[in-house]
């Protein structure tokens, strides 16, 4: 089945073409939904079979390349359309097709009755096609194709309801913002790719990584390569300073937020850094930068998440924050921990978004959690699954988030510093708080919505995916139980990914050993912090609802700063957007374009016209005048010749 892996890329493309071309004529939501979902479902089955086949192989033989055809062949540049099936890409492919399939099914219910139902499924399938190219590619160029493809789909889907208002603008403005900010990252990624080709004479993963492992190259070159690639990753994965697009991406339909802006696309940056681990491991300075940026992103996004009132906004900032965790893991050299968190996060964050979608659906598109309350009894299935996901993300012991997050925190402590660990735990604490603030404000307490809203449980086409994801959120962590609980070699996930990261880990210096007691102690502290803050949220938002208002009133300045997201958007607006607009308008448009370029064009026409006005006087129609001129010409020519003799 491994040799047929290209089908997993092709099937979504076929689904996209069918729905995209004939969707308008099909006029049957069920059929459109089935085509879209089955394309991804079949892909998932193929990936699953390939996964088990790979699992049965000995470790050395687990990496396969499936070549399709030569794409670009120019000089020394040879790019093939080839898919790399190895441990890392299989994990990613399982997440993308698996979670993707569930979200496709969910969308059949969520998008029911939308006027462009078919367009939605066409875009979703196109997204899966691009995403599969991204993760299965065996070279940078095909990866970049997928990278741009998912960006395009993200743009199309954020602006899916192009006629709707979103906050102060329209959804298309949010879509444009996402696209433009991503372009900045893509620019960095492109530069990184050029530098890689310049250094290694190849863009094929295997060749580049082998050369990087064998040949000594100056750390400076590695530093720039890693930095440029990280800029790309920061754009796609919403890290400081390029995170501003992700919260606005919530303008799209909720399944899109779940699939693209939580589970899959935004993790592309994490995947790319993990894939190029050897390049990053060769530039320790940049690795530290990544860890710090990841940590700062995690921390600041969590603080913003504390006070947001839009249910999707809270989840969006939570996503930014969790992505920060993943980069923290990558930055301290714990690549498999980063990918592990990527996987568990895909489960519970997709679940949270889909749960939020279910709530929004029930509340007739109202997203303000201050207008929810007491929904527990109306939608029990949504409540239970949402609650499980909230526990998982908070790191409740035994759930998936506990294993992955504590692994990252442990690595932050053992490979990073105590300060990193403290900030990480503070973030975890806030995560637990804002998630349960969301839970308590939405599902508990008094009903604060108006009487004309009649909340109801969503149809089973929506709740069944929720339940499957809830199960995954619970058990997903058990494939990566830390060594202290499972004994040597008990962390199956790390063991599975080890061959991918072995060369990078060899390059990073060895870290001092830490005792298991320390690990247990730290784990205990972070769990206690999470549980404490869950209780605190419970106390504040159900027992004494007045506290929140009093506190926010007391710390008005801080509260306003947080509600306004540290004014980052405003700062970008006045520091970057406005100056660019001003320069574009006053200099580039009104001066350079109007005066210089238009001036040159119009000026040459003007000169010709004036010249013509003089010259045409000679054209008087009198034959003999022409003859005279001719004679004079000849006479002058003769004089000339005679004089020059």
């Amino acid at each position, binding site marked *: 089945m491994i040799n047929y892996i290209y089908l997993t890329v092709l099937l979504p493309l076929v689904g996209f073409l069918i729905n995209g071309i004939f969707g308008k004529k099909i006029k049957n939501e069920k059929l459109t939904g089935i085509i879209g979902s089955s394309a991804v479902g079949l892909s998932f089955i193929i990936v699953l079979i390939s996964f088990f086949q790979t699992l049965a192989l000995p470790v050395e033989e687990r990496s396969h390349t499936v070549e399709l055809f030569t794409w670009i062949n120019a000089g020394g540049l040879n790019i093939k359309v080839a898919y790399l099936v190895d441990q890392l890409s299989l994990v990613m492919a399982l997440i993308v097709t698996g979670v993707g399939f569930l979200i496709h099914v969910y969308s059949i219910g969520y998008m029911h009755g939308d006027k462009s139902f078919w367009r939605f499924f066409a875009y979703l399938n196109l997204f899966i096609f691009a995403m599969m190219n991204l993760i299965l590619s065996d070279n940078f160029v095909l990866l970049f194709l997928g990278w741009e493809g998912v960006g395009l789909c993200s743009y199309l889907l954020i602006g899916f309801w192009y006629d709707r208002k979103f906050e102060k603008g329209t959804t298309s403005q949010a879509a444009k913002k996402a696209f433009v900010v991503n372009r900045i990252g893509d620019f960095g990624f492109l530069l990184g790719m050029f530098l890689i080709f310049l250094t290694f004479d190849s863009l094929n993963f295997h060749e580049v990584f082998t050369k990087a492992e064998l040949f000594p190259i100056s750390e400076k070159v590695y530093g720039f390569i890693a930095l440029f690639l990280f800029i790309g990753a920061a754009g796609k994965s919403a890290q400081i300073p390029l995170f501003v697009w992700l919260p606005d991406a919530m303008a799209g339909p909720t399944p899109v937020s779940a699939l693209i802006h939580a589970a899959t696309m935004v993790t592309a940056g994490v995947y790319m850094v993990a894939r190029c681990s050897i390049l990053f491991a060769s530039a320790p300075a940049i690795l530290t930068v990544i860890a710090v940026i990841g940590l700062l992103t995690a921390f600041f996004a969590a603080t913003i998440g504390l006070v947001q009132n839009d249910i999707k906004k809270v989840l969006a900032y939570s996503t930014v924050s969790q992505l920060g965790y993943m980069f923290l893991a990558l930055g301290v050299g714990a690549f498999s921990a980063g990918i592990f968190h990527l996987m568990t996060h895909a489960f519970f964050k997709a679940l949270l978004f889909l749960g939020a979608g279910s709530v929004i659906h029930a509340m007739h598109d109202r997203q303000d959690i201050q207008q929810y309350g007491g929904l527990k009894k109306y939608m029990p299935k949504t409540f239970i699954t949402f609650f499980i996901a909230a526990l998982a993300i908070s790191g409740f012991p035994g759930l998936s988030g506990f294993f992955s997050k504590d692994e990252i925190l442990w690595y932050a402590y053992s490979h990073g510093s105590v300060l990193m660990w403290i900030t990480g735990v503070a973030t975890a604490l806030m995560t637990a708080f804002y998630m349960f603030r969301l839970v308590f404000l939405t599902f508990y307490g008094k009903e604060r919505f108006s009487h004309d809203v009649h909340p109801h449980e969503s149809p089973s086409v929506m709740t069944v995916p929720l339940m499957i994801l809830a199960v995954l959120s619970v058990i997903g962590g058990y494939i990566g139980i830390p060594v202290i609980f499972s004994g040597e070699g008990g962390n199956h996930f790390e063991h599975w990914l080890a061959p991918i990261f072995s060369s990078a880990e060899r390059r990073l210096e060895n870290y001092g050993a830490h005792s298991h007691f320390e690990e247990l102690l730290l784990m205990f502290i972070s769990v206690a912090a999470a549980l404490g803050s869950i209780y605190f949220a419970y106390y504040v938002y159900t027992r004494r609802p007045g506290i929140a208002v009093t506190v926010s009133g007391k710390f008005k300045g801080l509260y306003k700063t947080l509600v306004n997201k540290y004014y980052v958007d405003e700062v970008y607006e006045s520091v970057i957007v406005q100056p660019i607009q001003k320069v574009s308008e006053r200099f580039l448009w009104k001066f350079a374009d109007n005066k210089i370029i238009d001036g040159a064009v119009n000026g040459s026409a003007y000169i010709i016209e004036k010249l013509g006005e003089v010259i045409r006087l000679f*054209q008087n*129609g009198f*034959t*003999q005048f022409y*003859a005279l001129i001719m004679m004079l010409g000849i006479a002058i020519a003769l004089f000339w010749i005679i004089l020059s003799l």
Partner: protein
Amino acid sequence: MNNVPIEYYLILSAFMFAVGTAGVLIRRNAIVVFMCIELMLNSANLTLVAFSSYLGLAAGQVFVFFVMTVAAAEAAVGLAIIIAIFRNKSTVNIDEIHIFKW
């Protein structure tokens, strides 16, 4: 023939050419202008023949035949044009036929 100096031929030819040029520039009657052009052509022919004889080369005389052929063709076409113009405008005064202008 040989004792007539070459200068005589050249002076005569220059005179004929000057008369022809003056006629082309001054006269208004298209047919006269046309005849003047022929005069200029023939003055050139005379020069060619004179030099041909003076230098003892046949090339000049061959040239003259070409010029005469072209002049004949030109006369045919030119007169046809003048007749056509006369039919349209009832005049062959070239000052009245200045239609090619801005």
